[in-house]
């Protein structure tokens, strides 16, 4: 199993732990990741707000690179925004030949062109549908027993393209958590917005959203909120005291592959728990698997 890997900007800077844990967890599952050489920013949510063509050309460049350098491989993106931007190119060009023509024209300045077929995958999609739950369970050496994990999916891996999960009531991450031996919680805000980049541009609008999510997770009895998006992770871990000042202790927020690493018997430092900004005291010592 091999993918063209697109880590995206966040994973190479503020979310290094996501990148590292993803690589390690997938390696343990026998999945090979070939990083797209010379990849550049996908435009995040900003490009779309400035130029439509740019919002397609930026991710298009990366797909073109993948197509040229790593032909035939599905492109795997762990970050939600990157995933959606790349996927949008795949979807738009499928039904709109004019869009493809325009992207190709823009890319032509770098002597690049979109490959004939593209297949963009998200980490969760790959885990559940390619690797499969039994294979994950098989690698578990320290089951996360008794760990109440609130899966948090965010938005853009679910919507607008419902590729691999229910856009309102997703369940794939819960399945993975279950395979890790944890107890996934069925809580109502697992797919609601965390405010995304509004946290940077309109903080006062985003904070209540984060507060709601944290409270709901706590109310559901979560020991940890599991994420698959650097922006979600950042919003949920870095603003806890501002968004939910009444929250008693930090609520642990961790990337799913970090939890996978723990269940696979890796040392917390191996999956860079040191970089997490919200880890409840004793979290890593609490559950047997985390001891």
């Amino acid at each position, binding site marked *: 199993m091999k993918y063209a890997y697109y880590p995206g900007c966040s994973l190479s800077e503020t979310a290094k732990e996501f990148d590292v844990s993803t690589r390690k967890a997938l390696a343990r599952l026998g999945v090979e990741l070939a990083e797209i050489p010379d990849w550049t920013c996908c435009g995040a949510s900003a490009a779309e707000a400035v130029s439509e063509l740019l919002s397609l050309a930026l991710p298009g460049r990366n797909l073109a690179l993948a197509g040229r350098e790593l032909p035939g491989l599905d492109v795997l993106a762990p970050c939600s925004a990157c995933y959606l931007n790349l996927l949008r190119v795949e979807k738009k060009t499928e039904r709109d030949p004019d869009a493809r023509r325009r992207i190709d024209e823009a890319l032509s300045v770098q002597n690049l062109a979109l490959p004939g077929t593209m297949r963009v995958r998200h980490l969760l999609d790959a885990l559940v549908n390619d690797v499969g739950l039994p294979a994950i369970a098989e690698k578990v050496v320290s089951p996360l027993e008794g760990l109440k994990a609130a899966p948090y999916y965010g938005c853009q891996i679910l919507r607008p393209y419902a590729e691999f999960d229910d856009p309102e*009531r997703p369940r794939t991450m819960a399945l993975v958590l279950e395979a890790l031996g944890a107890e996934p919680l069925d809580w*109502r805000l697992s797919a609601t917005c965390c405010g995304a980049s509004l946290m940077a541009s309109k903080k006062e609008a985003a904070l209540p959203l984060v507060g709601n999510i944290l409270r709901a997770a706590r*109310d559901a009895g979560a020991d940890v909120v599991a994420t698959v998006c650097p922006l979600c992770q950042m919003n949920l871990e870095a603003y806890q005291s501002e968004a939910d000042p009444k929250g008693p202790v930090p609520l642990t927020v961790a990337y799913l592959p970090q939890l996978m690493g723990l269940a696979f018997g890796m040392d917390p430092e191996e999956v860079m728990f040191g970089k997490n900004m919200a880890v409840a005291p004793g979290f890593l010592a609490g559950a047997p698997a985390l001891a």
Partner: protein
Amino acid sequence: MTATYDALVVGAGVAGIRSALDLAGTGQKVALIDHSPHLGGLLVQLDKQFPTDNCGMCKMLPLTERESSSQFCMRKGLFHSNIDILLSTRLESLEGDPGQFHAVLRKHASFVDPTRCIGCGKCAEVCPVEVKSEFNAGLEARGAAHLPVPQAIPNHYVVDLDNCVRCWRCYDACPTKAIDFKFAERESFNILVADPDPQTTADLAEWLKKQKFPIEGPVDGNSVLERAAEGKDVRLLILDMSLSDVSPERVLSRCLELNARLPVILTGTPEQAEAARLLEQGALAFVEKPLDRAKFVPWLDKLYMRIVSDEIIEIDAAAVVLAGGFSCYDPSEVADVLGYGRSPGVVTSLELERLVSSTGPKGRGLLRPDGRPARRIAWLQCVGSRDLKKKADFCSSICCMISIKEANMVRRLTAEQEGGPAETTIFSMDLRVFGKPFQSYLDEAKASGTRFIRSRIHSIIPDPADPGAVRVEYLDDAGVLQVESFDLFVLGVGARPPAGMNELARAAGIETNEWGFCKTMPFEPARTSRLGVFAAGSFSGPRDISESLVMADAAALGASRLVNIYAPLRERRPQPEPEFRDVTRERPRVFVAVCSSCPMVESRLDTDALTRRLRAMSGVTGVALVDRACTSQGWDRIIDKAREVDPNRVVIGACMPYAYVPRLHELGKALNLNPALMDVCDVATLTALGGDDGEGTDSEVFSRLRMSVAKLLGADPRPTAQARPASPVALVAGGGLAGLTAALAVADHGYEVHLVEEREELGGLAMNIRRTLDGEDPVKHVELLIDQAGKHPNIRIHTDSRVALHLGRAGRFFSVVNTPDGPVPVEHGAAVLATGGVESKLYEWGFRVHKNVMTQQELEQRLADGTVDTAGLNAVAMIQCWRSRDEERNYCSRVCCQQAVKNVLELKRRRPELPVFVFYRDIMTYGFMEHFYTEARRTGAQFIRFSPDNPPAMEHRDGKTIVSAFDPVLGRNVEVHADLLALASGIEPADHSEIAEMFGVEMDEHGFLKEAEYKWRPVASTKYGVFVCGLAKGPANMEESIAQAQAAAQRAVRMLHEKHLASGAVVAEVRHSLCSLCGKCIEVCPYEARRLSPTMDKIQVDELLCQGCGSCAAVCPNSATILRGYSDRQVLSVIDAALEETV
């Protein structure tokens, strides 16, 4: 053997029943089938209907055959000598042409012998299976052995094999051995295994040892072929794909050639892909190898039971009516956020109907999931309707009214609770109350306290503060986000094509439309894409009961027209009217025949003592025990014994009175005795119910038989009077679309029709319409009708004429038509009033003062004839509901929104950038017209909602009209400077006062001709024998008018068909010498069959209208009014007989 029918009706819901009754009523033999094990379709689950808030299905009783069925509740069943009912039966294929269809039906076995089942319920008690009860909408569990609906008559348990776990407990528990799983026949069910691998045969032999199936094999392909050719008895062939000497394909095709019904099971590895092809060629199933014993054995055993128990029935029919109904959208089938299936407080509208029903799930009722009373109940409209995401760019038409009705039901049910009725809230976008009485129904609901909120709730979540409740957020009209909690949230689920629609469409060879409903032809709303196959009810689109029945009548008319054309091809023997001897002067001689084969009779009844006691009864001259009375031999024995006794009264004690009643006619013929002097008494149920030890059974049975004897002793032996046949002529008043359609339809049945039109030209209002929303040309259609009517040998057209005199009663009317050539007298049996309506023209808002103001219809015409040039326009405004749905005309004109959408699309087609503004209250694009509304929105036309208390204001300045109105979405006023203003003026009734008085029919509060009953008798006027259709009855679009006209024609044909205008045997009569003329009986008669004579000295009963319900007899203090067949003496002596055995 192939049975021959005139028509096959598929679907026995209310529309199918109606079509079947229509056809049966005109003497046609009908096969009525339904895939479910009960009659009545969805309606068995609904107790009350809008807008009357009661059931009212009994209003259709006049269509049944009352003499032979003593039927009193249409929800309980259907009995008609011309209708054969086949339940659990599906249409498999339909070959042939109109007039000569050949249908193959598959009747799924219920495994319960209805002649033996006594409804004791023991099978259901012991059944370990728990599956969702269909009847209670999944709110309750049922066993595999279960009673499909509680109220049917006859009502037998059935075994649902698909869910059966083969424990056979029901078989053991059945006291009458009514359940038959064909255990004994297994030994002769030869299974031939053609598999080169000998292990397969060995395995099967081992696995199926217990079942004792004879297994033979392994055999090679050639020997299979040999055996098939020899006609050896092989009941099932297991054919492995690896067969090598002959290809499996060849084996299969050859075997099926020799025996088309041979069940062949393919086995093989999953990779053997050619299996799929063989399945298409007629193999029954493909089973993957290696065979899994735990799965294969039960599967094969069930397959065996199906093979030997299911019936294939082949029938010939001249025409087919499809009445497959619709199914309710399942909100759990797609990912959804409405909490359905997650929050128990979220239910569908169908589930709510069950929750408030007295036969609803036990222990539920109107409670919150936590058991507290539900005090705050909300409905959400458009769940699965008007939703492109759910592939439903249509409006389900009925849900708004259903929710209002349910709110009424809830309020009534909770009225006595502390704090008064529960709070009811309906969330909707447009409230589609487009039926004639619907607006006032809505007004009443508002007045009674139901809240209506314009919002489409997007998600329903558990209330964090109150775990038993759910919470919603919505935007109110001011754009403010509101948060509210409810105890129950009802999803007003939309309509979907019926389950199994694709299979049915394929079997019937019909096309479906974009949304999966049956496709119908322009201007022929009941015609499907296949000639001779008609669509009734909601099969071609969601409709309420009233319109479904109209469509059922129209479909029946189409079918009967066809049958009529092909009638000469078929042998049709008119049944001679039997005449019975007059036994008035004879002393009563009662013959009692008791069937001794009823399952429990022998074990529980002392038959000798019974015979003795019966013989001792005064008036009883003969008693006989008859073996198996239900068989024809048994029946012959009854006749023989009766001949010996020569009785003038006959009592038959057996099971299933309803099954025997029709046979009494036979007996009547054999004994030359009026069947009214015979009675069937159910002794089977009594014997079964008499407790485990049969204690008291003897006296119960005796008492019951004694009651029957007493009843017959008191029966009035006078023969019923014979009446004259109906005049085979119809008078149709009104020569517009509806009148022409009705006239042609009646005339095609061979009856003479007088078509009377006031104006000099035929055609009516439809001639003003240039194009329908679907793009059809109405004028061409109407011109065709005019041409056909002109050439029709049975139609006499009187234009420039009026009906000047109308006398008589149903079947025998006499009218005079004043024509330019002088008066023409017409004796006719029925009349159809299609006197039309008018586009209302009210001279306000600048209409007729400013030349840029016109009605929508004028706009359409002027766009067509070029007098409005779109190039010169800068903006167009339209105002809907101009004088509709207000105090003065409190009904929706229903066509105006369609008209507006049509004009918007036309304007936008010509000039896409032209600003068009539509001011509206609710857009009433019900049904598939919603699609055009979506289109109109898409063109960029702006729809601005106004509320009736703040209507748009208007001002005329410099040749422009300035319309201003408050836009609730924007929260401010919008001012439109329009070059052209189109007003949706609505439909008004023509002046019907003269025609109403002449024909003695009533007008409703709006001035339209009133229906006898809006829901159940939608084209009958308040006078029997006079029918109404088209705009005369209320606003309708062309398709609807056509359907109504055909329905009215159907009713008229049925009336004209009457060979004798006799009424049922059970009708009321007045003994004038006793009558004090107090008039109480007139007031209580629900069928308006009674009146004071014009000379004021007699109460008269219209025997055709009288349904024998007995209300009059109950209210009459001194039995001056009596019910024929139920005299006081008779009833008193029956009571007496019943009490005889008590202390």
